[in-house]
């Protein structure tokens, strides 16, 4: 792991669990990765692997009964100092100024991410006012500019409309505008295109790339869609059951996957080059119930390279296997 002060965000060994009457769910169980300024980190994995909870943990908005139980989230501030977000009070002044100010969040559901009874302008202006000491008029102007910069036509009119008056694509753009309104240095996008049709998806991704170029902003893109990762990410983290199982830059991951899970994921993508009429390879088994985690390596019940005696007894840790590559698998130890 690089101990580079050039890193924008460094997550080390994050563990977040949900404590319920029926049992404890370890939603994130030892995730470590870094985000470099101006670059895009893609976090990929199946539903339920803890991607969203990771994003929520970074922003310290994990819902009760969830709690961060271990780990560090080190953010390098604009003035160069480093702050461990885990140590901050979740609703304290400092964390709140970081939230929305230095780190922005775009959600997956544009439909319900806006309050149904407030105009998008109200919510946009509120965000601006919260993080900048400006007048209302100035905040409104900035809001209109933000809407314009995400490609919403006639922003002066749209700013006073309600979320249900906008189409899905426009709503997602508006969401991005709100997240960008305070010029964050890191944008966390949690499945930003999942709820959109393919054409709109492409537009939104283009938009994200453009904004990133213009502002030198880092992006943490969370998705289960490998195609989106291939297109957008510079570095990739593959997660399974709350753990990072493989890390590296996007070319290495796609052309030379090391972890059996990554390999299986890539194999299951339908490709124009694959042999016709052959059954699509899938990953055997299914994600275990959260209360029923397998002992040892969490992937071993479904692993094609399962080594009995080794994989079901110990838990592998993330270890470097090359320049900028890390894998968590006994095959490489």
């Amino acid at each position, binding site marked *: 792991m690089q101990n580079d002060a050039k890193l924008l965000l460094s997550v080390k060994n994050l563990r977040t669990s949900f404590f319920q009457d029926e049992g404890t769910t370890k939603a994130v169980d030892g995730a470590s990765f870094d985000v470099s300024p101006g670059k895009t980190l893609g976090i990929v994995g199946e539903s339920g692997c803890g991607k969203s909870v990771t994003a929520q943990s970074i922003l310290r908005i994990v819902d009760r009964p969830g709690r961060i139980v271990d780990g560090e989230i080190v953010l390098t501030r604009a003035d160069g100092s480093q702050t461990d977000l885990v140590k901050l009070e979740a609703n304290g002044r400092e964390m709140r100024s970081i939230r929305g100010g230095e780190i922005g969040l775009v959600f997956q559901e544009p439909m319900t991410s806006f309050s149904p009874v407030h105009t998008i302008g109200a919510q946009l202006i509120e965000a601006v006012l919260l993080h900048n000491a400006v007048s209302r008029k100035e905040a409104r102007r900035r809001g209109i500019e933000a809407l314009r910069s995400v490609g919403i036509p006639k922003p002066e009119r749209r700013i006073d409309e309600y979320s249900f008056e906008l189409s899905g694509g426009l709503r997602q753009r508006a969401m991005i505008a709100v997240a960008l309104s305070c010029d964050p240095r890191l944008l966390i996008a949690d499945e930003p295109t999942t709820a959109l049709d393919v054409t709109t998806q492409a537009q939104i991704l283009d938009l994200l790339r453009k904004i990133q170029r213009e502002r030198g902003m880092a992006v943490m893109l969370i998705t289960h869609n490998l195609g989106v990762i291939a297109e957008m990410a510079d570095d990739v983290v593959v997660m399974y059951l709350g753990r990072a199982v493989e890390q590296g830059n996007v070319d290495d991951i796609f052309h030379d996957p090391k972890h059996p899970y990554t390999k299986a994921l890539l194999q299951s993508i339908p490709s124009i080059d694959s042999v016709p009429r052959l059954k699509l390879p899938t990953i*055997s088994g299914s994600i275990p*119930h959260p209360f*029923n985690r397998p002992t040892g390596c969490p992937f071993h019940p479904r692993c094609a390279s399962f080594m009995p005696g080794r994989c079901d007894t110990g838990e592998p840790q993330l270890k470097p296997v090359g320049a900028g590559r890390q894998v968590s698998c006994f095959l490489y130890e």
Partner: protein
Amino acid sequence: MAEFAAALEEGVVAEDRIAVATQWQLIWWRFRKHKLAVGGTIVLVAFYLVALFADFFAYVDPTESEAQRSLMAPQPIHWIDEGSFKPYVYALKGTRDPLTFKRVYVPDTSNKIPVTFFGRGEPYQLFGFITSDRHLIAVEGAKPSESLFLMGTDTHGRDLWSRLMHATRTSMTIGLVSVALSLVLGVVLGGISGYFGGAIDTVIQRIIEILRSIPTIPLWMGLAAALPADWSVVQVYFAITIIISLIGWTELARVVRGRFISLKQEDFVMAAELLGCSKSRIIFRHMVPSFISHIIAATTLAIPAIIISETSLSFLGLGLRPPAISWGVLLQDAQNIQALVISPWLLLPSLAVIVSVLAFNFMGDGIRDAADPYL
């Protein structure tokens, strides 16, 4: 392939540890966790036992009046007699009150009458054909009508405890009959409204809105006052029931309609239609099971309102009238504040109202929470 099957099996075995149960079992387990709801249910079972076996729980004829014993204070059971557990009450002797010269009864501390439980007392008919003379509380060597006054007496000298037992029977059953009527009306009309939509829905909705906008008490008062004074107790009882349910169905109808409307849009209903199921099959086999628990909850929660309505009407003198006995009728005696100050025990029946309403509410809440899949 073998690998696949093995992994599948392991998955299924693992899931068994979190067992798979039927919908009703799940609801029951969730319900059990609600201490208050379970407590409420137990209380209600007790109340209905009393309603069923009122004669057993009472110890005298509730209509037997004795003017000279009017407005006696409660005579509690004393549990310890000279160091051992031998419950007793004091006998009463008649004396003349020095101030009013009226004949009053006061406890005679020299004369102890032993109390037995499940003992013999005055005979009665259980369910109309089984004769019995066993009572919960009885006395030895004396007549219960002269010695037991656990809750005191009312203005006519009638024993309040026995009257309370019989009142419980009336009040608790009126609620059931009334809610059954409301349920039928509500489910039918609400279902038609919700399932068919369109013009029928609009008409029924408007009717419901109109009915809900009318203050109910004046309406009830009017309807109840309209009942001929010479109707028998039973006729009045049923008339009141019908009156109350005629307004009460609107709430249930709204719930049912809401459920039907949201269910109509569910994918599984469309799937059933596409499979070619008939309308009635869709309704009864697919839609009804998913909201039946909500209906049960709504019904349970409707009963306390009915109990309060009947009690209020009878309290005003517009509902059940003597010789019928219900909680409301019992509370009529408490209307006079001056009399109440002298004999506060006249308010005791109100405890029965409060406890039963609370119990119904707890139980209904418990059912509703247990049946809601989103909690």
